[in-house]
């Protein structure tokens, strides 16, 4: 559990980095979207989203932006995660859980290799 003082300390430490990053706006970002329609939420989309946030920030992985969308909904294949890597086609992962997210981060977002076993069959 972080106190507000800790957060401020992190902020100060990070501010220099943030300024550098803000100056390099043109660097392509990988975009990750979690489906947050009713079915996705029922299937555990929030815990998938949480794992993404925690893992990517703890591991200090740069160049990733994350969001959620109620328009992303694949019925029995929820929770769904889409990865848009710069210059690559969109990749859609289905029936994602916290463990699968960790592998998607390591293999795909960091390593650049699509995790084929989590794609729709």
């Amino acid at each position, binding site marked *: *559990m*972080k*106190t*507000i003082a800790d*957060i401020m300390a*992190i*902020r100060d430490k*990070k*501010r220099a980095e*943030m300024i550098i990053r*803000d100056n390099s706006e043109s660097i392509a970002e990988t975009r990750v979207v979690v489906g*947050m*329609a*009713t079915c996705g*939420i*029922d299937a555990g989309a*929030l815990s998938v*989203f*949480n794992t*993404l*946030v*925690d893992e*990517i*920030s703890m591991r*200090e*992985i740069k160049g*990733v*932006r*994350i*969001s*959620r969308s*109620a*328009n992303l909904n694949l019925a029995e294949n929820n929770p769904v995660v889409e990865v848009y890597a710069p210059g690559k086609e969109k990749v859609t992962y289905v029936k994602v859980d916290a463990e699968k997210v960790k592998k998607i981060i390591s293999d795909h977002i960091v390593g650049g290799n699509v995790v084929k076993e989590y794609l729709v069959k």
Partner: protein
Amino acid sequence: MKDIALHLLEVCENSIKANSNSLFISFEVFDRKICFSVKDNGDGIDSKKLKSLFSNDLQTNKFSGRGLRLLKNDCENSGGKFKINLCDKGTCVNAEFILDFSEKIIGDLPSVVSALLTEEKLYLSFEYVFKGKVFSFNSTELKKILGEEKLYLPKAVFLAKNFIKENIEKLNGGLAI
């Protein structure tokens, strides 16, 4: 029933889907009651659709609005009320649960609010009231506190989540949520 934070998330996702760019969320804990309200400036629901949303006609109800119907059921099953009103610009949802405070019933409110903050160009105002004590902020203030404009960056979501969690726990008097 699912926890109240997840109900709140669904209502807000509906608002964003309906092209809202401003959300006012209020979440209040009383002695024997937990309430939330969401006011948006989205497209709204036309009154005909609103009627059919809660009718028992399963054919028209098969696909849309399931989340709102579940929320209405959970509110009413607890002895509380559910209201959805159309305003001149947008929609206002009020959910009331007659329940004792517990972390399990409320769910992960900090994660829900920080997830919503990742929506670009969304102005979000959040207020948490625990037995009369208030914690509130809006997305503009939060950007200043975190020193970060881009609330969709994982680090910003992480910091926002902890900021909200810490403040809610303070009001709850050390009871973890």
